[in-house]
């Protein structure tokens, strides 16, 4: 029985840790999307903890009460077929729990797939994010600049990342801002994000894509809008323009530090033409285009 107690205490340890002082990255959100996922995670942890405690309690009870050494020599366990009532409870309670979690899931999934709450009316900043072996390219078409392996974003403004890849599948993940999404060749995925707190956040590729995978990380800096504009101007004043030749060099497999360019590689190497993953709901008008091209996705085999 020692083990059961060990298990229980470990679970409580984890639970206290999760709710405790030093929050884990995923549970320490800096924007509405990551806040939504944090809330969903916490609700599910408490619900699951309830189930685990019930099962553990029942198990410990029957093991102690009905162990052979606790019973007389001639005790003959009865033959029991089952009871409608007990089986009804065993099915009914899980059904209620699953319905409860389903409602939360559907609601929150639509939420993280659309423009962040509170920023619905604002014009989003669109950033094209593309991965290559083993780095990240960030293109800002509006600002007409491009960076490698780091990202500056303004706070309190919705951002739409348009994700794709120049090679194998990568997964764009900044846990403190939002859950991850795949960057794939031949299609564009959209990830909606907003940062409400200025600061530096770790981002990485979460999907294994070969030898250099472990080091395919990048840094995200969220800053006030005017600081962001200052940075853009500074880049225009100081950085070199990106050219086809330079970009093709960058695409060679390997690691690079942080780089900054004016112009974007989208001008000479357009992104894939099919879109995916814009929320399929009716929430965002500007996605209508995406949807129509998405329909053609199936026959074009993206």
């Amino acid at each position: 029985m020692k083990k059961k107690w060990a298990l229980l205490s470990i679970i409580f340890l984890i639970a206290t840790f999760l709710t405790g002082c030093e929050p884990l990255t995923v549970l320490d959100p800096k924007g509405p999307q990551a806040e939504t996922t944090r809330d969903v995670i916490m609700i599910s942890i408490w619900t699951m903890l309830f189930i685990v405690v019930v099962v553990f309690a029942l198990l410990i009870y029957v093991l102690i009460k009905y162990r052979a050494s606790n019973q007389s020599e001639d005790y003959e366990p009865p033959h029991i077929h089952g009871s409608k009532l007990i089986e009804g409870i065993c099915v009914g309670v899980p059904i209620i729990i699953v319905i409860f979690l389903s409602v939360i899931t559907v609601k929150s999934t639509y939420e993280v797939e659309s423009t962040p709450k509170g920023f619905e009316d604002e014009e989003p900043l669109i950033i094209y994010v593309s991965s290559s072996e083993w780095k990240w390219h960030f293109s800002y078409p509006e600002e007409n600049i491009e960076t490698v392996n780091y990202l500056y974003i303004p706070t309190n403004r919705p951002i739409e990342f348009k994700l794709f890849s120049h090679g194998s599948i990568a997964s764009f993940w900044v846990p403190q801002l939002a859950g991850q999404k795949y960057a794939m060749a031949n299609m564009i995925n959209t990830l909606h994000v907003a940062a409400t707190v200025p600061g530096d956040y770790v981002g990485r590729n979460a999907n294994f894509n070969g030898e250099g995978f472990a080091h395919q990380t990048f840094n995200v800096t969220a800053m006030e809008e005017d600081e962001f504009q200052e940075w853009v101007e500074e880049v225009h004043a100081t950085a070199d323009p990106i050219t086809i030749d330079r970009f093709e060099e960058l695409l060679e497999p390997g690691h690079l530090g942080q780089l900054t360019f004016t112009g974007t590689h989208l001008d000479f190497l357009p992104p894939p033409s099919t879109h995916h993953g814009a929320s399929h709901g009716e929430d965002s008008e500007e996605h209508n285009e995406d949807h129509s091209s998405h329909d053609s996705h199936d026959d074009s085999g993206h």
Partner: protein
Amino acid sequence: MEFFERFAVPNPTFTIYASMVAIALTMLAVVIGITYFRKWGYLWSEWLTTVDHKRIGIMYLISAILMLFRGGVDALMMRAQTAVPENTLLHAQEYNEVFTTHGVVMILFMAMAFIMALMNFVTPLQIGARDVAFPRLNALSFWLYFMGAMLFNISFVVGGSADAGWTSYFPLAGNEHSPHVGTNYYMLSIQIAGLGTLITGINFMVTILRMRAPGMTLMKMPMFTWTALITNMIIVFAFPVLTVALAMGTMDRLFGTHFFAINNGGMDMLWANFFWIWGHPEVYILVLPAFGIYSEIIPTFAGRNLYGYKSMVVSIVSISALSFVVWVHHFFTMGQGALVNSIFAISTMAIAIPTGVKIFNWLLTLWKGKIRFTTPMLYSIGFIPIFTIGGVTGVMLGMASADYQYHNTMFLVAHFHLVIIPGVVFALIAGMFYWWPKMFGFLLNERLGKASFWFIAIGVCVAFFPMFISGLDGQARRMYTYSEATGFGIWNMISFVGALMLAVGFVLIVYNIYYSTRYASRDISADPWDARSLEWATHSPVPEYNFAITPEVNSSEAFWDAKKKGHKLFKGEYKEIHMPSSSGVPFIMCCFFFLWGFALVFSMWITAIIATLGIFACMAHRSFEVDHGYHIPVDEIKRTEEKLGGAKK
């Protein structure tokens, strides 16, 4: 020279050279040993050519234990590498090969083989049959599996192992990003072993549906047989998808087609879909028989009938149906949008309902019982809490929005190990301890067995609980290293300690086999556990014809009722028994399959053609062969039965 160069591994290191030497020495020792003891003839006539389901089961068991150690060493290497930040024990390429082969070996060559071992040995006995429906196909299945496994295992020292993950997603697994032959090995060896599994699926479905003893209606089948039936149905539906996917992948790699490429109209998403349409049901192929094993062991050692037999049947059938409609939860992040993700999230969580029913039924089976804590029972009880934790975290992963944060992280690794180890590995060990006396005629040592349980049960928790935390802290899976600043170090170190405990537990099991083989008493009854189902009604070890007289059954616990209520299981007189004859053809045919796979891995076309002809020659041979098996005369049955402790009637 050029000819040999292609077999060289792309990144030779000390470990690889050491393994080469170790493999060569082991092979040499085996060959010398067999020759010295003059066992070649015995090996050929009693094992390599056997079609007896019990011996095939035992060969699966031995292979599975070997593969457990191969996969286990991989696991230890991974945990050792990540135990401290910035470790340099393995470099990236080695780590990638190690986690890829770990996953493939554990799922396809260890867990599958272990399931096949118990299914082969137990199901025909539980339904009172003489053998499976197609004994020779059964031998073919085993040898296909075995050759597939061997082909996969030599990749480490000949040509280089697969390194694109056990999921082998394209375009990473395509020629451009994985130029060396590792992924060819992956495609071809899984293809060969998978064919064997598919054949088994058909074979056992027919066996269970057609060869049950008189009186055993479907609703009187023991629960393990039920799970075996459903599992084989899933195999028959799911494996063809894998076969097609692997064939297309092989063509992409060897013949330059573009099914999964990202240019010329290929679709990388197609691979992910195919892989998981097979892959998700695959985990139920593993776990349902495990549920069946627990449903045999828990009633036996609780001294009570299984609670809610009917709801158990309903729940396995509904789990098997649901397992085909959830595959998209493996790529919620691929951009299919909120609607599709919501649908698959709900179907995923729905599986928790029938699974929950099973957990409660086992708990209620213990209720009012008389619980004996034997080794198989300890594993079955230990399964419940650990699997519950693994299961509820699975529900958490099923919530699509939250999965965007868990996907591809250590949280996922923790979840699936906490379902698969108690759900599958515990069941297999429990089943092995439980049916061991039936297989070999002696019991495994209980003290060593219990010690192994505690090491393994505690080891699993210590090894995998920390991963929930490091996963939520942002540690992605499949990272060969990480920096000090991430703070993952402490969790990975704890996890390494747990892995070491697990290793001790597994070594104890093997030591137990050695120890008990030497010292255990052979003087045990045919029913040492006071069990309930039909396989315990014959002798231990089981004579080649299983039952001298076909039993007649009138409940799902036929043997228990025979013991307690005095039902007569065996009625009538001894009659001649018809048995299938042994054959070397399945073995030879699979040697050609091995050659075929090896030749294709290295694009050696002429050898491949010769091997193909060899395979067809074996098939042709079979179609012209006249073989009606043979009969065991009544005298001989009488003599055998008397020798085994008196005729049972």
